């Protein structure tokens, strides 16, 4: 019984260690277009034909449901009839990580 508890504890610790926080994923994958401050002014925006969404704007983000945000992160802009410039991150991030990113976006916009 003791060994079972130990195994469970080890599994819990290792899953906690390997999970990447939403903040770190946002920095790694989203900053390039949505910006270090999440305001849509990323390092790539200069020559973009469609400007990335300002994640700090309650007005721009308030109309999006959590389901839409999940879908657009996982499947890309075209999946919700938005720009092809928003790529799908489903091959890079797990569903759990995308759900955490949706929560993080809600903190940035202070909406929803």
């Amino acid at each position: 019984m003791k060994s079972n508890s130990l195994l469970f504890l080890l599994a819990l610790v290792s899953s906690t260690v390997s999970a990447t926080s939403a903040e770190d994923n946002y920095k790694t994958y989203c900053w390039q277009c949505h910006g270090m401050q999440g305001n849509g002014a990323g390092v790539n925006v200069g020559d973009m034909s469609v400007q990335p969404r300002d994640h700090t704007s309650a007005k721009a983000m308030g109309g999006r449901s959590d389901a839409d945000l999940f879908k657009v992160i996982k499947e890309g802009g075209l999946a919700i009839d938005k720009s092809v410039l928003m790529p799908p991150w489903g091959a890079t991030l797990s569903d759990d990580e995308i759900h955490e990113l949706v929560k993080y976006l809600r903190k940035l916009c202070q909406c929803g």
Partner: protein
Amino acid sequence: MKRYWLLIGLWIAAPALAADGKDILEQQCASCHALRGPAAQTVAELWQRKGPDLFYAGIKYKRDWLESWLIKPQRLRPAGYLYFQHIKPGDKQDVPDTQTLTPHPALAASDAKAASDALLELKPPALSALVTAGDFKGGDISLSSGEMVFDKFNGCLACHQIEHDFGGLSGPEVYTGAKRMQEDYLVSFIRNPQAWNPKIPMPNKHTAEPNIQKIVQYLVALARGAADEK
């Protein structure tokens, strides 16, 4: 007679004096580049990388380009590697923080040749299996049609420059992409970037196979244009 012995002695010693490519890689490249796999499996591991992985350089790069670039390196990633470690807020948008960007060291011609030879030997079987000779079918595309596929249909311009000072800054420029990289590798990489490097900020866009071919045709056309300009 003494002179002959000296010449014979030099002839025997010569191979030992020539720079060993593997030694150069270990001594001058390993502090920033992974010479052994696997690629970073987590974001935390990715953040430790200071330069692109080289442990599959023999599958990825073209030898002629590699040798000439090592003699005279030029920045390929406007915002460095990795972009998020080398940017800062600007007036209108984030900008590369050039003070944090360090130039890549240049090698002497003989060292560049030896290092390129050693790099071209780096072909891990598991990754070699991702590439089939002839994956790139060849063929031509006009620059305007290629740009349409690259930008309008797939949005690659968001992160990659297609000419100096035009395009995104977070990824490597692509106007010399086909000079640098083997076409069959490019097809495989675009098809599934995560198979090569699971956590890099390059998404898998599930691009249809004909469009992957067109994108690589476009990169070849761009590289030809870049070469013509020189």
